[in-house]
């Protein structure tokens, strides 16, 4: 899992059945100080997260299918939690 920030929303009307009634959000992974943010992606929301929230994202298909309870869902990343606080004693 990774920690990311929700930066946007995606609206799709025509999409795979597994996406129905689920929100798609744009997530930017958090980076170490000095690194340039890159590699943003789209994740399915399962936690009612919104723009600006810091979220926990599972980027693995099998875990995503378990969260959605759909063995055929073509989903690779799903938001599984909203981060309240992070405690990092020291960064290398």
């Amino acid at each position: 899992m990774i920690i990311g920030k929700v930066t946007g929303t995606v609206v799709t009307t025509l999409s795979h059945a597994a996406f129905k009634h689920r929100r798609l959000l744009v997530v930017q992974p958090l980076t170490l100080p000095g690194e340039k943010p890159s590699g943003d992606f789209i994740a399915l929301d399962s936690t009612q997260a919104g723009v600006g929230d810091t979220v926990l994202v599972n980027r693995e298909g099998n875990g995503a299918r378990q969260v959605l309870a759909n063995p055929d869902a073509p989903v690779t990343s799903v938001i599984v939690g909203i981060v309240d606080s992070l405690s990092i004693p020291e960064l290398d």
Partner: protein
Amino acid sequence: MIFGRVRGVAISTIKYPDMAGCRLLVVQPLNSKLEPVGGLQVAVDVVEAGEGDLCVMARSREAALALPDVKFVPVDLALVGLVDELQVRPDGDFDFTLKVGTARYS
């Protein structure tokens, strides 16, 4: 999952048997600012996308799951949604760095 812009159509007559009937599209992967990421790729279409359409794409094994019938096909990129509306906050709006110590987010 990532964004992709449909650039064209790929036609293949001889292909893996279970891929018969699959529509293959040439797509340009994009980031959330809709800037190109890497080169053109070929994706299987499941949402009837057309040239110029902005789509959501699934990569790896999950792309094969998007196909309606056979789930074991050698496919690693699929268009799974057509984007109607996209709202992304500008870069300066959020701080994306991890901080030493305790950071509260809510």
